């Protein structure tokens, strides 16, 4: 079911016309009202009037996280403060927090977008939704809450924490849809089991899970553990929060709400759009945001577009589940490599821990990549054939996601150094003077 079928299933031609009109409107508004954009456009010699098709978007300068940071707290707002009715902020784990503002109209549209998300997961006004995303400056809680109310569902604003109470509410209130992070869904399942509650016997039937990376294997585990359909949702506060893109029940890529957000996939190195279906950095341009529109915002998330039309009938194109961050991009033999993709592979293979290290060396003119992977302590170490088969499988699957030749070395359990913050995943021993990257 679609919440707004006339919009979500509109013909591509009409959609693209709408996108162009909204793009021109947005560009005009930010140029008039946001000094940072005006300076960027002027500096690049970019003329608003020259935008006559969506293809002209590639000439518009990018926006990056640092632009938002430097404008802290209100510098990127495109309307006077009295028109802003709410702010949220990013977590600030990697630096200065960024503040995003919403007008009444933004909140209204955001509610629609999140209602679409629930409907795409199969939810209706008859559902009972438990929201365990944190309520507060984080966009997850209130975004999920307003969308659920907009759908007309009974909405339970539990927020995060106190997992036993979550299980109690889930059981006593007859909850049918759970909104939380995938890892929290797992914890709820484990806690329920400890409490002697069989979630599979409860009315719960769907979960909308997002705000952190997860894998297909983890999805299957959660679906089995909770007896539900698990739906991947995507969003980021700089764009709007959750509701940017969401899977439908086909579970094959996330439909981007293209009537509100333009998506591009670019090579993070050259910043040129990649051919359709190739991996690159996800870039969004908002089309209807009033409080804080963003123009070609580089998300640093890595994904690719999914080809073809979806059986659900939505005409919005789909992006694949986000599987990496550009922050850890490497260039190996001229190919962009995203080591965080390795983690996704490891999560799907039994017998290995999700810890790895990439060792880069140079032999002659050639870059050499060796991936160290930890075997789990409970592996049947006597089985040399099983170890060799594991190594072959790892090598094949890692090579298929990285698209470069790698060697895989199995290392002992817990031998890769753990880090409190950002783990040191890459050791680059290539000579800097010969073009290597020192990290």
């Amino acid at each position, binding site marked *: 079911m679609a919440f707004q079928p006339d919009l979500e299933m509109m013909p591509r031609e009409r959609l693209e016309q709408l996108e162009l009109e909204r793009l021109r409107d947005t560009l005009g508004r930010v140029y008039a009202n946001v000094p940072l954009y005006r300076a960027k456009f002027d500096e690049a010699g970019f003329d608003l009037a020259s935008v006559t098709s969506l293809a002209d978007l590639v000439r518009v300068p990018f926006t990056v996280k640092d632009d938002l940071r430097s404008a802290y707290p209100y510098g990127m707002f495109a309307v006077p403060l009295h028109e802003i009715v709410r702010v949220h902020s990013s977590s600030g784990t990697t630096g200065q927090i960024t503040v995003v503002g919403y007008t009444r109209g933004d909140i209204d549209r955001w509610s629609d977008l999140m209602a679409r998300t629930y409907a795409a997961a199969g939810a209706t006004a008859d559902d009972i939704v438990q929201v365990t995303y944190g309520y507060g400056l984080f966009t997850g809680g209130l975004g999920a809450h307003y969308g659920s109310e907009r759908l007309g569902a009974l909405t339970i604003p539990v927020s995060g924490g106190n997992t036993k109470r979550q299980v109690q509410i889930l059981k006593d209130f007859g909850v049918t849809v759970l909104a939380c992070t995938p890892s929290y869904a797992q914890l709820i399942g484990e806690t329920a089991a400890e409490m002697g509650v069989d979630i599979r016997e409860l009315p719960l039937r769907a979960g909308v899970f997002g705000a952190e990376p997860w894998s297909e294997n983890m999805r299957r585990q959660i679906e089995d553990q909770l007896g539900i359909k698990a739906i991947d949702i995507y969003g980021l506060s700089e764009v709007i929060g959750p509701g940017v893109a969401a899977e439908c029940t086909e579970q094959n890529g996330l439909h981007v709400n293209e009537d509100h957000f333009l998506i591009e996939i670019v090579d993070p190195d050259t910043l040129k759009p990649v051919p359709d279906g190739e991996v690159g950095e996800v870039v969004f341009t908002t089309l209807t945001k009033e409080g804080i529109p963003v123009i070609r915002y580089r998300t640093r998330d890595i994904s690719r577009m999914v080809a073809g039309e979806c059986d659900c009938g939505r005409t919005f194109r789909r992006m694949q589940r986000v599987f990496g961050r550009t922050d850890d991009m490497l260039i190996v033999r001229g190919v962009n490599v995203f080591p965080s993709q390795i983690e996704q592979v490891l999560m799907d293979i039994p017998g290995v821990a999700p810890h790895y290290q990439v060792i880069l060396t140079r032999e002659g003119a050639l870059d050499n990549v060796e991936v160290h992977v930890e075997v789990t302590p409970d*592996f*049947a*170490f006597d089985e040399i054939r099983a170890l060799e088969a594991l190594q072959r499988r790892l090598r094949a699957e890692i090579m298929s996601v990285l698209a470069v030749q790698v060697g895989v070395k199995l290392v002992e359990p817990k031998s890769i150094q753990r880090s409190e913050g950002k783990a040191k995943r890459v050791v680059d021993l290539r000579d800097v003077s010969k073009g290597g990257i020192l990290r």
Partner: protein
Amino acid sequence: MIDQLSVFLENRPGRLAEMAQVLGDAGNNMRAFVVADTAEFGVARIIVDRPQAARGALQDAGFGVTVTQVIAVEVPDRPGGLAHVLDVLGRAGVNVEYAYCFVEPDSTVAVDIFRVEDPGTAVAALEAAGIGVVPAGDIYEMD
């Protein structure tokens, strides 16, 4: 049935020595020892005098350890001794995955360690043929 320790060893210099050191520090004596190696890693197979204590010490030191059930067979220390044992196992349809041997001091028999797919059948066939299967208590302390 004998508890053998199988220890995963990264392919790097000194790792085997570290393993031996951990066992020594824990007061464990190795009765038999063999390393199977591939290009990328090794697996040390060890019979020690106190297997459970040794396993704990190795795991505490960060080693990946599996306890594997093997059988120990007394083989007369003369030409053809091993061939006879293997013949018995072969006739019983028992497939040997790997084997190694050690000789007890002041003894006229060698002890051969066999890892087989079906230890129960193997032991029955060996005993029926009058071949001595060594109980665990003769090889190490039953900790």
